[in-house]
């Protein structure tokens, strides 16, 4: 197969970027999108040019490193699929493909298609954890969790932090990501102790990072490689309301640690 790629090239965080056009030739339909990019990069290196920088790690859809805007769709045209799991057979021979980095003020471009997503790390650091010592593995039934709660927690925990939700959102909102992180702890008994502070802190941090607000377009869910449900956002909002009316002064704030 053959493709014409229009790729965003940007030498560094402050450099001005532009699209460059490359021909990808001899591409097999069984190659993943990233393997196709590898092939293009090989030919760039052979010609003595800079290869296109893009993020990737596991290449099996679980790490959340990969991600690019492919023809205007985050992670490309396949639903619930990360870029590394997208195969070239889903494109038509001869297609022109636009490839852009995630665009958000909170995700500055580092180089080409690589963006800095550490804003996500800071949102998690603000409250996406439990501080209870968990000790060794317990017997399975010592803490009872209903099947539906366990399912909800697992579905939310599937978020790999790729950032496609922010990239796809017309408002550049991180609500699906934050909602997933808040839900996956918030539905389990272990997550209850810090449930209120968690939602207040994570939302405050999300705003601090200059993500936009949610207007319920639903683009994030469509873009999400894990098809995280919009319900996590409603859950986050409900938790926020409850936390706001019920959270007491945090006396332990200075003493902790």
């Amino acid at each position, binding site marked *: 197969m053959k493709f014409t790629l*229009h790729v965003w090239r940007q030498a560094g965080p402050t450099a001005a970027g532009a*699209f460059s056009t490359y021909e990808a030739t001899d591409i097999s339909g069984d190659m993943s999108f990233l393997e196709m990019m590898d092939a293009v990069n090989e030919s760039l290196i052979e010609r003595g040019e800079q290869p296109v920088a893009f993020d990737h790690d596991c290449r099996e859809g679980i790490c959340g490193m990969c991600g690019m*805007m492919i*023809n*205007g*769709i985050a992670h490309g045209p396949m639903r619930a699929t990360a870029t590394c799991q997208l195969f070239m057979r889903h494109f038509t021979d001869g297609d022109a493909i*636009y490839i*852009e980095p995630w*665009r*958000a*003020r*909170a995700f500055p471009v580092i180089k080409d298609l690589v963006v800095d997503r550490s804003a996500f790390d*800071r949102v998690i*650091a*603000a409250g996406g954890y439990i501080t209870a010592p968990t000790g060794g593995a317990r017997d399975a039934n010592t803490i009872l969790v209903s099947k539906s709660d366990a399912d*909800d927690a697992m579905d939310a925990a599937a978020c790999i932090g790729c950032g496609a939700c922010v990239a*796809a959102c*017309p*408002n*550049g*909102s991180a609500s699906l990501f934050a909602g997933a992180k808040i839900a996956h702890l918030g539905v389990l008994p272990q997550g209850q102790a810090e449930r209120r*502070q968690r939602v*207040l*802190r994570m*939302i*405050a*941090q*999300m*705003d*601090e990072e*200059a*993500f*936009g*607000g*949610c*207007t*319920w*377009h*639903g*683009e994030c*869910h*469509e*873009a999400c490689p894990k098809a995280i*449900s*919009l*319900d996590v956002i*409603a*859950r*986050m*909002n*409900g*938790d*926020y*309301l*409850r936390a*706001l009316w019920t*959270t007491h*002064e*945090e006396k332990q*704030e200075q003493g902790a640690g």
Partner: protein
Amino acid sequence: MAGSRAQASLGVGRVHRARLFWQSTVGKKIVMSVTGLIMVGFVLLHMIGNLQLFESAARLNAYSHFLHHTINELLWLVRIVLLVSVVLHIVAAAQLTRIDRAARPVGYRKQDRQAATVASRSMRWGGVAIALFVIFHLLHLTTGTIQPVPYAPGDVYANVVGGFRVWWVTLIYVLAMIALGLHIFHGAWSSIRTLGVSRPRPEPTRRPVATLLAVVLWAGFSIVPLAVFFGWVR
């Protein structure tokens, strides 16, 4: 350090907490939801009131008399609540729009929307259109400042039937009601979720109640100018 404000800001007193609420994007959305739902409740009652036109002139004018004289204080209370709602709704919307635009300073060359609807994408401009329409509507039928035909204070029936004989008045109303229907189709559905209420659904955008509400309001309001214009009501 970016994390410090979020941490420090949690030493919450009551005033401080209200400020935090208003500062957060989620807080502003909640304000928009509550005020939006108040306005939905109002327009529903307004529409039901209007439909008395189809019974008789006397009935409609009696209803107007009831509102303006019998329960005048209540009417003013409702007006104040609505005014506060409108102001909060618009201020929050304007601020959120600024925040959202700032969140993506560099746009995409190509962007292919997957889920956004005409309704969800027209919320902002549709909202502006509705606000302008409300001003026009108040000047037209409440104060009688805009008089396409002579305005008779107290004779609601005559004002309505006279007013909607004018083609451009009817056109403005009909177009505005399309904007209102779209705004409610998205707003009624999303505001409930912004308040944290959602029954988990496999199809994220199934919204029977919001659809029904939008259609009923659109049809119930549009029928009045159309009925007058086409001479079904004289």
